[in-house]
């Protein structure tokens, strides 16, 4: 199993790593608009949205041990909830809230049946995958005038065009421009990262990781794995919904392709390539893989699906723990003396998990 190789990766809980990540993110947040033009900024914005999506998947999979193969369901629901909300309300702040709450409610309902049915990991993967496929079919079939929510036509395969952009809360006329959207997306990414780090450092997060390591033992200690898994799943869905909201804003457009299998596969690949059981890994994975897809798509050398497939198979076979843990382990081997705390802490953590 992949997780067995992870124990070391997440037991190293230094404060400086996350701080460095946040500082780098802030530098990028402020610096990017000065360096790059409108086009580059738009590219970076969609990358930030996808990185938030990857964070959600990395959290529930890498730390919660929940194998969700259909995370795109929540991305899509968030995107659609935002589009419908924004078209029906003058102030889009409520739509953002909808984009987070609707996927969370959906996840709560679906998760109740999955986790309280105590089905195996593989079944959870299959059920979530199936849910995203069926949502794709469902939204595809909503073409025609009878399918609308309030003033928002769902539009079937063509989706919803000209979705109103975000505005400053309480002031519907102050709509965000390209720069503003970048600040919102990158700011949201940094906040999500801090939020997840905080959750993982909290008592709740420790129980979640404990359940991933040994569900029976956690249960014998008095924690209900079903409830903790459900809550983890719901948090992931909310963050995915936020990503969907930003993704919709980026193109001012949403269509059923957000529910597609390729979307679900991409986020799995981001996390797997970046590194399970880390938070920075999924972010880097999202950036790296999207860059690869853009290059491949731009040059028409190789079909993007074929490329994604090859990357996924290669990583499962050869580097199942992902890039970031491998690099981290390599650094530790190179400079063991500089980090006495982690080497000391390691046997203790291994003992605890034995």
């Amino acid at each position, binding site marked *: 199993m992949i997780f067995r190789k992870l124990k070391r990766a997440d037991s190293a809980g230094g404060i400086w790593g996350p701080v460095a990540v946040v500082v780098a993110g802030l530098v990028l947040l402020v610096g990017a608009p000065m360096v790059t033009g409108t086009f580059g900024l738009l590219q970076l914005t969609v990358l930030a949205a996808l990185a938030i999506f990857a964070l959600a998947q990395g959290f529930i999979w890498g730390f919660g041990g929940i194998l969700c193969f259909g995370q795109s369901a929540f991305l899509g629901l968030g995107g659609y909830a935002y589009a419908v909300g924004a078209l029906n309300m003058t102030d889009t702040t409520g739509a953002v809230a909808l984009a987070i709450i609707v996927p969370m409610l959906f996840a709560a309902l679906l998760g109740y049946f999955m986790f309280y049915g105590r089905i195996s990991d593989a079944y959870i*993967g299959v059920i979530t995958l199936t849910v995203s496929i069926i949502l794709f079919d469902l939204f595809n079939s909503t073409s025609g005038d009878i399918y609308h929510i309030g003033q928002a036509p769902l539009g079937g395969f063509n989706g919803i065009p000209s979705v109103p952009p975000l505005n400053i809360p309480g002031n519907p006329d102050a709509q965000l421009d390209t720069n503003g959207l970048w600040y919102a997306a990158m700011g949201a990414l940094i906040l999500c990262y801090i939020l997840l780090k905080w959750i993982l450092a909290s008592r709740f997060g420790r129980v979640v990781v404990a359940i991933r390591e040994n569900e029976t033992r956690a249960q014998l200690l008095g924690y209900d794995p079903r409830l903790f898994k459900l809550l983890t799943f719901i948090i992931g869905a909310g963050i995915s919904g936020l990503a969907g909201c930003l993704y919709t804003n980026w193109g001012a457009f949403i269509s059923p392709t957000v529910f597609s299998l390729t979307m679900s596969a991409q986020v799995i690949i981001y996390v797997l390539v970046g590194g399970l059981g880390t938070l920075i890994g999924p972010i880097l994975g999202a950036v790296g893989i999207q860059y690869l897809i853009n290059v491949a798509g731009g040059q028409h050398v190789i079909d993007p699906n*074929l490329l994604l*497939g090859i990357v*996924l198979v290669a990583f499962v076979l050869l580097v199942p723990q992902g890039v970031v843990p491998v690099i981290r382990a390599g650094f530790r081997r190179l400079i063991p003396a500089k980090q006495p705390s982690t080497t000391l802490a390691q046997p203790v953590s291994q003992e605890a998990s034995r």
Partner: protein
Amino acid sequence: MDLYGLVGFNILVGIGTIALITVGLGVIYGMMKIINLAHGEFMMLGAYATYVANTHGINIWIAMLIIAPIFVGLVGLVVERCLIRFLYGRMIDTMLATWGLSLGLIGLMTSIFGNDPRGVPTPVGSFSIGHYAASLYGFVIVVVAILALAGFYAMLSLTRYGLIVRATMQNPNMAAALGVAPPTIYMATFALGAALAGLAGGVLAPISGVSPVMGAAFIAKAFITVLGGGAAIVTGTSLASGLFGFIDTFVSFKSTPVIGEVALLLAAVVMIRILPQGITGRFLRRSL
């Protein structure tokens, strides 16, 4: 009365279709505990094999009933040797690897044949139920599904290979101690499951059309049915196909096919809460 006849016929065809698309997945899952996420793409390969053979002047029946399963069975053999056998005992990794395979096959076929859907002619005409016309091809699907399930059941219960397979399923170590090579059995089983997927793809090609992404249209139903059926391959697939095929076709008739699929999913989600191990996890546990 005619309408009831038509609906009854359609429900029968719906059950047959679900059984046909599920049996290959069920064989691989039931025997090897591997969920093959590339199942839809194996079906897609079967459909393309039928299409290519048919455009080269080969009889359509031979193309879909013989060439498609053999071709996809060989593909399954190669996949097992090159990919799956490194991942036995790592269920999640197998799912990820077969998902990668699924994406890769979609990309590969898009590169070769392009995105546009191709058609395979329907080899039989239609008949009438009172005022309504129904395609005779529905009967073909039902017959092929029954033959596939019955043939597999006979193989498991009557032949020596079936006995060895069942023994390997129950206890691979004991089987190995008695002189059976489990890796060979796994290889053959995976190829058999792939061949059945190819058969399903070939037989359904005239109805669904042939395109690189056609697999996605089937796998949702196939996965739900396998989970609903549980561990016993033939009994589970038959019972779950019957249940889900009925729900799907009936609701589709009352509203739209998409709503039918949603009803199917809802039924399955409620069912895993009540029967987490599938139908045969609680009833008929000793069946095949």
